[in-house]
C-alpha cells in the first residue's frame, strides 16, 4: 500500500540521503490524511449538502422549484446580467492588456494596481458606492429622478455592481500572458504589412485565446454568483430585480429550504463546470508550455 504515497525525488543517492530528503512513510500518510480530511470537511461536505438538501423532498419537488415564475425570472436576470457584464469586461481586459503588454508608458505599474482594486473591495462596499452615485440621495439621484431613469433598485444597478466586482478577471489573466509572449510575432506581422485589426485577430488573439477563455469562465462564475454587491443595489423585488443568489436568500428566509437549495444546486453545478473547464485549460497550457498555470 505504500506505493499509493510515493515521492517525487525517486532514484536519488544512498540510504541516508533518501531518509533526509524525503518524509518518512508515516509522515506522508499523516499529512495526506490531515489535508484530505480538512478539504473534505470544508469543501466536499458543503458541496454534497447542496444536492442532498435540494433532493431531500424528492425529485418532483426539485423540478417543481423551477416552474415557479419568480425562479425563472431570477434565472433570466442572472443570465442577462452576465451577458452584459462579462463581454464589457472582456473588451476592457483585452484593451488593457494590449496597451500594458505592447507599449511602454509612465505609470504602468500604478495602472496594473488600480485594475486589481475591485478585488480588494468588500462586495457590500462595491454596491454601496453605486448607491452613493445613482441612489435617490446620490450625486446623480435628482437628475435621474427628473428624467425618470432608475438605476438603483433596478436592473442597470445590478449590471453595474456586477461589472465592478468582476472587473479585474480578464485583464489580470491577459496582462501577464501577453507580457510573457512578447511582441515579436506582432512586429513580424507589421513588417509584412498587416493592419492593426489584422494583427489582433490573426496573430494576437490565437496566441491568447486560452488565457482569454480562462479569464472569461472565472469572470462569468463570479458574475452569476455575486451576492453582496447585488444585494445592496437590487431592492429585492420578486420577479423583477432578483438574481439567482438573491432569490435563494428570499426562499431560504421563507423557510422554503427545498426550493432554495434547488436553485442553489444550479449555481453549484455552474461552479463545478467552471472548475472542470478551468482544469482543462490549465492542463492544455501545461501540455503546451511544460508546467505552470496560465
Amino acid at each position, binding site marked *: 500500500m505504500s506505493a499509493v504515497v510515493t515521492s517525487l525525488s525517486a532514484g536519488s543517492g544512498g540510504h541516508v540521503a533518501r531518509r533526509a*530528503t524525503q518524509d518518512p512513510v508515516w509522515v506522508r500518510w499523516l499529512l495526506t490524511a490531515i*489535508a484530505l480530511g480538512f478539504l473534505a470537511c470544508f*469543501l466536499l*461536505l458543503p458541496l454534497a449538502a447542496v444536492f442532498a438538501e435540494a433532493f431531500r423532498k424528492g425529485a418532483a419537488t426539485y423540478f417543481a422549484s423551477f416552474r415557479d415564475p419568480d425562479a425563472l425570472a431570477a434565472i433570466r436576470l442572472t443570465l442577462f446580467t452576465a451577458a452584459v457584464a462579462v463581454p464589457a469586461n472582456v473588451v*476592457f481586459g483585452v484593451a488593457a492588456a494590449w496597451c500594458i503588454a505592447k*507599449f511602454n508608458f509612465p505609470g504602468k505599474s500604478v495602472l496594473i494596481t488600480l485594475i486589481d482594486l475591485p478585488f480588494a473591495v468588500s462586495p457590500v462596499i462595491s454596491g454601496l458606492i453605486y448607491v452613493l452615485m445613482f441612489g435617490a440621495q446620490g450625486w446623480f439621484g435628482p437628475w435621474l429622478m427628473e428624467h425618470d431613469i432608475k438605476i438603483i433598485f433596478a436592473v442597470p444597478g445590478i449590471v453595474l455592481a456586477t461589472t465592478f466586482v468582476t472587473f479585474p478577471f480578464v485583464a489580470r489573466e491577459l496582462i501577464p500572458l501577453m507580457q510573457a509572449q512578447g511582441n515579436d510575432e506582432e512586429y513580424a506581422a507589421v513588417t509584412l504589412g498587416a493592419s492593426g485589426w489584422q494583427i489582433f485577430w490573426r496573430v494576437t488573439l490565437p496566441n491568447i485565446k486560452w488565457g482569454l477563455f480562462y479569464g472569461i469562465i472565472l469572470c462569468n*462564475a463570479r458574475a452569476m454568483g455575486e451576492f453582496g454587491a447585488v444585494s445592496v443595489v437590487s431592492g429585492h423585488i420578486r420577479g423583477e430585480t432578483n438574481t439567482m443568489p438573491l432569490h435563494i436568500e428570499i426562499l431560504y428566509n421563507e423557510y422554503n429550504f427545498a426550493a432554495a437549495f434547488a436553485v442553489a444546486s444550479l449555481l453549484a453545478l455552474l461552479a463545478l463546470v467552471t472548475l472542470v473547464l478551468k482544469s482543462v485549460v490549465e492542463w492544455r497550457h501545461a501540455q503546451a508550455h511544460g508546467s*505552470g498555470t496560465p
Partner: protein
Amino acid sequence: MPSSRSSRSVLPGFGLSLGFTLAYLGLIVLLPLAAAFIKTAGMSWSDFVAATTSPRVLASYRLSFGASFAAAAVNATFGLVVAWVLVRYSFPGKKIVDALVDLPFALPTAVAGIALTAIYAKNGWVGSWLDPFWASAVGRLDAALPGVAWKEWLGVKIAFDRPGIFIALTFIGLPFVVRTLQPVIEELEPELEEAAATLGANRWQTVTRVLLPELFPALLTGFAMAFARALGEYGSVVFIAGNQPLHSEITPLLIITKLEQYDYRGATAIAVVMLVTSFVLLLLINLLQKWSRRYHRV
C-alpha cells in the same frame, strides 16, 4: 528588428486601447470609489469619529478582524499541509482534489452560506454532534477559568453564533494559501534539502530550519490574502452568523443595516474605514509578493 523604444510607433492602437482602459477604469471603478470618500469629506470630523467608533461599530470591527485573523491562521496552517501534500506526494484522485481547492472561488457565496448553515446547524450532519460538544466544552472552560467571558468570546453553538462566522471565513479563504504556496514548493530546489542532509541535518531539522524559512514569505502572502478576503466577506457569513448586534454582527453586515435604515453617512463612514484598511492590506500584499520574489531569486 525594431527595439522596444520604438515599439510605440510600430504597433498600432496605443491611444485607443489606453484611452478606453483609462475611461472604463475611471467610470466603473475610480469615480464610484471616490464617491465614498467625497461623501465622507462632507462630514465633520467629530461626526465621522462618532459614526466609526460607536460601541456597536467597534464590536463589529473586533469580531470581523478577530474571526478573519483566526480563519486566515487556520488556513495558513492547513493550507501549508495541503499545498505540501499536493506538490510532493501522489495519491489516487489527486488531480480532482487539486481542482476542488478552487471551489470557494467558483461557488457563489450565498450557496456556500446556506450549505454551511445546513451542515453546522444543530440538526445538520456535523452540527448534530459538534453543537452539544462545543456547548459543553465552552461551558467547562467557563467554569474552569471564570475570569474571561468565554461564552461571549467563543459562542455557545456552531451555526448562528461566532464559530459559524469562523467556519464561513475559513471556507472562503481556503484557496489563497494553497495557491500561493504551490508554485513556491514546486520550485524548491532538491539541492537545498540534499545539502542540509549532507551537512548532517535530520528531516525535522531540514524542514524547520531550511524549508519553512524558504516558504515563509509566500505563506505570509497567502495569509494576508485570506485575511483581506475574509474581512470584506458578506454572502457566506450572513446565513450562518446569527447576526446579533454587539455579538455576531460583522462589519459588512453593519454597513448594510445602516443602509437599510437610510443612514447613508453612517454606512459610508464605516465603508471608508474598511476601504482604507483594504487598500493598506493590498499594498502590504504587493510588497510581500515582491519580497517573496526577490527572496527566491537570490
